[in-house]
């Protein structure tokens, strides 16, 4: 039984990883062949870094992800606080609308924003580009922040805020000293989600970007539509490496803080 489950796990992992490793291996191929390794080279990596379109869209992606996720986090955290204090019916209405971009297929969200932007672009004389992308990214990020922060209020001891006031905090101090630290884990995970979703988003960006301001996924898409280019393999390899490093670091840090918690607990006993 144990053995069987290990074999099963191995098979699933094989299925998940083989395509990625094939990409990585052929990123070092001297020819454009996708089946035969003719020799080892870093040429595609050099070409990749010299490719202005890719570099520019990478820069765009990062800037938009940073601004969008910070804005979404502030907007969403404030919203969560306000929504939490709403009466039952308005709260339900707001939460249902907030859930929409999460439940809805991304293509519908993308298309609906495109319709809005087309409508205003014609009347207010602006073009699709950086601003439309940014607005779209903030729009699909905020709901994730709200959904991450709201449960923290439910978990929080409802008397904490009152206790802080009882001990002499005014409402601003009570918020920053007591409430904010309590909901911080939710705020942070909301931010991280926004940031990664923004980096990774293709579908919504595809409908809301202009020709001069594209994100990396949109550029990748247009590359895959054209002829075979091992630059994509090189790019995949780099992205994969970054992902591995970030996730391993995150895991190590989490485990360390977990161990520390256990230690502190042990000392108390």
């Amino acid at each position, binding site marked *: 039984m144990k053995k069987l489950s290990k074999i099963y796990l191995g098979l699933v992992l094989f299925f998940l990883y083989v395509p990625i490793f094939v990409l990585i291996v052929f990123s070092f191929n001297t020819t454009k062949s996708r089946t035969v390794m003719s020799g080892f080279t870093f040429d595609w990596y050099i070409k990749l870094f010299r490719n202005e379109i890719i570099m520019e869209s990478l820069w765009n992606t990062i800037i938009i992800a940073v601004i969008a996720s910070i804005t979404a986090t502030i907007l969403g955290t404030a919203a969560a606080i306000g929504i939490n204090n709403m009466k039952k019916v308005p709260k339900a209405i707001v939460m249902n609308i907030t859930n929409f971009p999460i*439940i809805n297929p991304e293509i519908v969200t993308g298309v609906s924003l495109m319709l809005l932007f087309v409508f205003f672009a014609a009347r207010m004389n602006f073009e699709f580009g950086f601003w439309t992308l940014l607005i779209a990214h903030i729009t699909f990020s905020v709901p994730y922040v709200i959904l991450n922060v709201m449960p923290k209020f439910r978990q929080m001891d409802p008397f904490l805020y009152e206790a802080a006031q009882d001990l002499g905090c005014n409402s601003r101090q009570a918020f920053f000293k007591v409430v904010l630290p309590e909901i911080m884990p939710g705020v942070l995970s909301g931010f991280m989600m926004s940031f990664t979703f923004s980096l990774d988003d293709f579908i919504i960006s595809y409908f809301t970007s202009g020709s001069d301001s594209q994100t990396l996924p949109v550029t990748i898409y247009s590359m895959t539509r054209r002829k075979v280019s091992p630059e994509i393999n090189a790019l995949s390899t780099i992205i994969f490496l970054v992902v591995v490093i970030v996730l391993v670091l995150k895991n190590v840090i989490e485990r360390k803080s977990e161990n520390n918690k256990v230690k502190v607990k042990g000392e108390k006993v």
Partner: protein
Amino acid sequence: MKNKLIAAPYLVWMVVFILVPLIMVGYFAFTDKEGNFTLDYVADVAQYSQIFVRSIWLAAIATVICLVISYPLAYILTGFSKNTQSTMLMIVMLPMWMNFLLRTYAWMTMLGNNGIINTILGFIGLGPFKMLNTEGAVVLGMVYNYLPYMILPIYSVMVKIDKSVIEAASDLGCNPWKTILRVVFPLSLPGVMSGITMVFVPAISTFIISRMLGGGGNLLIGDLIEMQFLGNAYNVNLGAAISLVLMVIILLIMTIMNQFDNDDGAVLL
């Protein structure tokens, strides 16, 4: 803290960028190019019923395959020690952090007539098989891309099942198989339900997977919508009508799913 106004900026944002765009989809679906009310476009959607059926069918197959692969995997994962569990989970989820265009591109290169799979098969005297540009390739792409969306919710519900409930089942006469059937499965049902929606919704509305792996012959709803907005077929009103129908289908399916699950949606992510 008690101030509801703090949610105001988000409420404005929500109305302008979530609610209004959705209303615009509805508006365009029911008007013609001059802005007069018409049911023509909604009626036109019926012409594409074949594409709708194919989309639902392929997405349903992909969802079932994901479920069949994920359920045992999630169960196996919960059997590991805490530390191994988090490491294994990270390894299983890691490919998901690669941009899905790249993951799909990887399969595109592997499935081709002179791709690596056919080359390997050729060595043992088989093939070449036509794999790319088939419905099978589309389903494969869906399974590959959305598998983690099925594993995660099932795992996170399963891992929360009280160990003593499992022991109770054993105490009351259940052998390991009966324990899974009578206790673990019913208790993990909310995770299964949210896994199904998390796979089905993106699968039914994708246009990348069908375009990259399905060639031109396997159009899905997503392709149809994309063509109306950014493709040669440019017809915003028809696109809006198709989007509307897609939304209705998904809402219907979600309502059916929610019948099984009277939880408050805490397992969404």
